[in-house]
């Protein structure tokens, strides 16, 4: 059983697709139930995987490997084959992200009660998207990673373009083209690495690239090649993360996509960018990564401040949150640039924490939109009177977002800055400005909605029992990590240690 566990986990969302194919498309209620149950199955499988996962174990666990595609090249000096394997496995980092994916997926499926049409195709695409996301984190070679990476792209295109708001098609195209550019660069880099080294496996690649230069020269791998590859990878994942100035697509998606999909996108898909930076950037080319650390830190700072400034000036709650995501992803970059344990831990914590917080906040905006038919700040006020629970959760989410101690946001920001102060104190000092700005824009937006003069809402009632489930679970998770971060850091330590070892920290 254990040997196939990960493959079952990756394919588990397909069970929902299978059931849906035999469900009449007009039966809204059962489709939505299947939608929720269909995401519970991957969650259950993920929990089984977690129990089989040895938390303190190093390296890859639950690995599976078999040959998949084989190209043979007949050359004058003998045949060379380029086998491509199906390789999956998990380490602490990917285990955490898979868990995050399955949890947020369940909650997004619950939040999908707000979807008004074509439920059947909606959930089929939803499940395919979930499969892609789990696959991305479980793959252990470039080929598989790329395939799952692209699999997330196509359902997203449909989900945005069909079920989104007014300018959905534009947003879908923008998403497709920007991410297409990212994956184009990614593919060229992956194939180039494959052809030089003959392997696509992460660990083997990391080993090969860590060989002394004299041996690498035999394989025609120069220092410039390594640097070029790293820059290509950074560029590709910078689109995904997104790093300013490549963020415009992401704002469009966050404004136009349906709320449950934004929960997934902001909660998980953006994190693929961060995951890629950690695994491919720092993991494969530690030396080159070190030499680029200042630039990465600088971009992190720009993201942090630029996102925060823009979030401060937005009139639409969705846009505030979108720019806040840009700003928060800056903290990931800052943590990575620190190149030390504190920074790395902060970056990874930020990935998980922001996944939960942004999922919560976007869920709440979805609720808000449903109540008032708008997400403009000016249309809301004094919500706390009519919807006290909603207002309370929103305030809590906002506080988590600005990094209040005792919540997950605090740990990650604290660690990231702690790391950066050690290595680049000037950048870090400027960066703290961003933290202040964050507090300002979060409170400005949240307070404008919850307090002040009460505005008439077309459909004002507090969180229903269905809506309470995602809201409370996400809030509980945010608090749990904030109060007991050791659980998370224990899971992540072996992975982070091995990356830090490569970085020479």
């Amino acid at each position, binding site marked *: 059983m254990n040997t196939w566990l990960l493959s079952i986990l990756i394919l588990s969302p397909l069970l929902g697709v299978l059931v849906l194919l035999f469900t009449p498309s007009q039966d809204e209620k059962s489709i939505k139930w299947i939608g929720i149950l269909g995401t519970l199955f991957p969650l259950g499988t993920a929990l089984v995987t977690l129990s089989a996962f040895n938390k303190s174990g190093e390296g890859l666990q639950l690995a599976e490997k078999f040959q*998949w*595609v*084989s*190209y*043979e*090249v*007949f*050359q004058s000096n003998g045949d060379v084959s*380029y086998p491509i394997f199906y390789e999956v496995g998990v380490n602490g980092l990917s285990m955490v992200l898979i868990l995050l994916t399955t949890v947020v997926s369940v909650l997004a499926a619950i939040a999908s009660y707000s979807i008004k049409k074509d439920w059947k*195709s909606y959930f089929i695409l939803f499940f395919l998207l979930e499969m892609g996301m789990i696959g991305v984190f479980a793959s252990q070679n470039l*080929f598989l990673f*790329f*395939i799952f990476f*692209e*699999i997330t*792209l*196509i359902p997203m*295109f*449909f989900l945005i*373009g*069909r079920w989104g708001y007014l300018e*959905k*098609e534009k947003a*879908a*195209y923008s998403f*497709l*083209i920007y991410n*297409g*550019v990212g994956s*184009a*660069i990614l*593919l*060229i880099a992956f*194939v*180039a690495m*494959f*052809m030089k080294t003959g392997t696509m496996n992460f660990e083997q690649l990391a080993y090969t690239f860590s060989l002394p230069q004299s041996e690498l020269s035999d394989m*025609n791998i120069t220092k410039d090649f390594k640097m070029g590859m790293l820059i290509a990878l950074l560029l590709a994942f910078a689109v995904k993360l997104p790093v300013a100035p490549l963020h415009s697509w992401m704002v469009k998606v966050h404004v136009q996509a349906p709320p449950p999909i934004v929960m997934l996108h902001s909660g998980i898909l953006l994190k693929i960018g961060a995951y890629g930076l950690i695994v491919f950037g720092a993991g494969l080319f530690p030396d080159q990564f070190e030499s680029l650390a200042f630039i990465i830190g600088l971009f992190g700072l720009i993201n942090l401040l630029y996102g925060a400034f823009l979030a401060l000036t937005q009139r639409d709650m969705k846009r505030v949150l979108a720019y806040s995501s840009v700003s928060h992803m800056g903290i990931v970059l800052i943590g990575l640039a620190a190149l030390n344990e504190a920074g790395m831990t902060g970056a990874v914590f930020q990935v998980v924490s922001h996944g939960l917080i942004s999922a919560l906040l976007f869920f709440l905006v979805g609720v808000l939109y449903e109540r008032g038919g708008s997400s403009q700040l000016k249309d809301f006020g004094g919500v706390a009177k009519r919807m006290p629970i909603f207002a309370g959760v929103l305030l809590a989410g906002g506080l988590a977002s600005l990094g209040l101690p005792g919540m997950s946001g605090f740990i990650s920001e604290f660690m990231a800055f702690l790391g950066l102060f050690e290595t680049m104190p000037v950048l870090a000092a400027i960066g703290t400005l961003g933290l202040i700005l964050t507090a300002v824009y979060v409170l400005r937006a949240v307070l404008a909605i919850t307090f002040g003069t009460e505005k008439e809402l077309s459909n004002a009632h507090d969180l229903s029992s269905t809506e309470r489930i995602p809201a409370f679970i996400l809030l509980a998770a945010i608090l749990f990590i904030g109060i007991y971060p050791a659980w998370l850091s224990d899971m992540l330590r072996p992975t982070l240690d091995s990356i830090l070892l490569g970085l020479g920290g």
Partner: protein
Amino acid sequence: MDLDTLLSFRWSVMLPEFIILGVATLLSVIDLFMKKESSRKPLAWLAGAGILAALIAIFMQLDIEVTSILYDTYRLDSFSKAFKILLLLGTLLVIVLSSNYKKEDLEENRGEFYYLLLAALLGAMMMASSADLITLFVGLELLSLSSYVMAGLERRNKRSNESAFKYIVSGGIATAITLFGMSYIFGLTGETNLFKIAENMGNLELLEHSFLIVFAFIITFAGLTFKIAAAPLHMWAPDVYEGAPVPVTAFLSVVSKTAGFVILLRVIIICFIAAPGIDKEPILLQVQPYVMVLAAATMIIGNVTALRQRNIKRMFAYSSIAQAGYILVPFVSNSSLIFELIWFYLLAYLFMNIGAFTVIQLLTSQEGSNDIGVFRGLFRRSPWLAVPMTFFILSLAGIPITAGFIGKFGIFMGALGLEQPQYWLASVMMATTLVSYVYYFNIIAIMFFRDSDGTKVSIPGGMAAVLAFCAASVLILGVMPDLALDFFYGNFDVNEFFMQIETEVHTHDH
């Protein structure tokens, strides 16, 4: 040549060709005696059965070693077998399409269509097996002439007439260019047999005329790229594709293009493999920039022009130009990877393009329009048409878990696995692929995101079978490409391509 010599050849080598020839002759005779009003559908069945028989014959030939007959002008080697399978499979699917093609004024011409199609197929198969410039050229012309007539088959349709006329004029020019190039090859080496040409190309005396060799290469290459619709000889494709009946368009874009690649590989690789270029460098290395520029230009022109098309057939014409550009990329890599890459991509291309044309034929004939709007709201109207079409388009765009992705991935491997990786060519390919997303996904957007007042599309059984077969193949080859690759490696040995056969028949006789 006396009777003994004639009988001494292993004619069984040509079994598939004989089957096609026989069926084509039979069809033309039957057609003559059939009443004018009676349906020509039985002819389609017969033609299909003939192609199936030829396919079986090829599969039975898989174990046969390299053989050549007629003084090494006609070869049965792995290369010819591998590509003949593609040609036959493609034509078989086109036959199904054409038997379901409904147009009032085409009815009376129906019979001709099937044996012309078989004649064109025969030409293409001859090209795959020939090892002599003369037989290659005869095969090429047989394919071309039959195609010219097929393009103009809708006699009362102005567009169809225009298409045939443009095709024949530009085709004639391309033929002239090809012949001009071949005349140089013959003049330099004094031979028409490809292997003898290759031998003589290595001749030391020729070193002084290396400029002429390069010239011969460029002219021949340019002429031969006409069939694959690569730049700069691509102009005919949009007009011809637009005017011709859909099954003919499908044939031209898949089978005829495959044949074009076959002849390119045969002539270019064998003739010039040992030829010196200027300064004694191998010519194939020296002309790399030329081939690369052609490939890049084809990809750019095809993809960028496709963006502006509203006519679905024209859009697919430009799309197929772009695809030809992708398949030209492996020509740059000098490894043996070239054969499997091109073969696999053409196989994938066969399924995705014929599948797409099946949908296009169903929609355009029902709506009576070639505008891209025929796809409007297709997902609502006929999900069983929209979903396979989505697979084909994703595959054409090179999205994972489709055959098109594996094909493109392989081409990337070929381009980046060289001694000097061709980063810029790979980048051009990737960038133009991105451009192609815009028009490919536009079709998807129209199918899924727009609502329509249109009616359900009825799908005849044969068309449904083609759709299911193509969609399943696109997906299966995307998930398990080894099915095709193992078949290729297991049955075909690309080294045979270069193997010259010592003709032990009495060469002194003539």
